[in-house]
């Protein structure tokens, strides 16, 4: 029961974007479409789970003064694996996400969870934490991506919603990302107060 809590908390109660406000850079940059958001979310989730599990396994071997560089090396290794595999087997997605894949290294959700959670807890808890946080990140990113794609491009998953809808271009650009994120934060706050 306690274990499931570690999973659930990432979805809403401690949602990395809406509550912890971590990883906002990739959130704003790649949420231009549902496809991009999902691709980014899933790759970050994979890195998050892998680094969480590995760090909780080796945490007692790493002297605390070099823990941050060690975490970064571990995270960067997983990101590079994701990048190479994606380039080899999903070239279309790789072309879309482009520069943002290597930037998963500095996605502060991953380092944040490594430092705040995985370096103190067991393997199973760290795995569930990574899974929950990753899914929370992916879902939030997908909602933003969906709203921005519908309003900013008039499309869902690359297909137009209606043939004579004129898109509001601003939503495809950075200001639209901030607006949608802000509105989501309001919704979350209002929901919590109820």
């Amino acid at each position: 029961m306690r274990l499931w809590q570690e999973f659930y908390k990432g979805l809403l109660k401690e949602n990395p974007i809406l509550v912890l406000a971590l990883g906002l850079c990739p959130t704003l940059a790649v949420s231009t479409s549902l496809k991009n958001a999902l691709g980014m979310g899933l790759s970050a989730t994979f890195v998050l789970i892998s680094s969480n599990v590995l760090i909780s396994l080796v945490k007692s071997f790493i002297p605390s003064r070099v823990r941050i560089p060690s975490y970064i090396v571990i995270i960067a290794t997983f990101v590079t694996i994701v990048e190479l595999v994606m380039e080899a087997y999903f070239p279309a997605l790789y072309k879309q996400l482009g520069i943002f894949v290597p930037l998963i290294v500095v996605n502060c959700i991953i380092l944040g969870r490594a430092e705040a959670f995985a370096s103190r807890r067991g393997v199973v808890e760290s795995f569930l934490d990574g899974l929950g946080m990753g899914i929370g990140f992916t879902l939030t990113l997908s909602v933003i991506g969906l709203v921005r794609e519908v309003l900013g491009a008039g499309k869902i998953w690359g297909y137009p919603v209606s043939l004579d809808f004129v898109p509001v271009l601003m939503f495809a650009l950075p200001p639209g990302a901030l607006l949608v994120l802000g509105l989501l934060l309001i919704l979350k706050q209002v929901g919590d107060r109820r």
Partner: protein
Amino acid sequence: MKAKSDLFQMLVSLGVICLVSASILSYVHAKTHPVIVEQEEKASQTAMYYVLPGAVKFEPAKGCDYYIGRDDKGNLVGYVFKTSEKGYSSEIVLMVGVDPDLKITGIKVLSQNETPGLGTRIVEVKATSTIWDVASGKAKEEPGRPWFLEQFVGKDLPGLAQVKTISGATISSSAVIRAVKKGLERLQRCLNN
């Protein structure tokens, strides 16, 4: 003495982590590298067939950076070349096909990273079916070709002046025109030599 052994421990653990990472990555790189090269080759092959319809064989030209397209009987169908130009926020890389009279037969954008919704309109395809058609299975297949790039088809070097840029995406679309012009001029020089 204590400080010294601390330092040693730090060096060793960081060193071990880096060593393990490096060996894992070189393994993954060795596994994926051939696949990546193959993918790139395939993508550029597909682009060649797309921009020069009718050609089945492409051979690299000697001394110059273009490909000669031939049909199955070995007759000359045209030439294919790569060209690129700086757009608004990225390098726009194109594959262009021309017939033996240097009239353009097709253009494909190989890579670009222009502003979504503005510069990316250079590869925009006129939509014919909505998401609801797709979901209900009524969609007509065949995605269509980007309308901006289709303007180039049938034009030669002087004809490029008639290509209309996209309003709101002037920089990106004129970069495409410049890239094509640059590539055509280079091809002409190569063929004359």
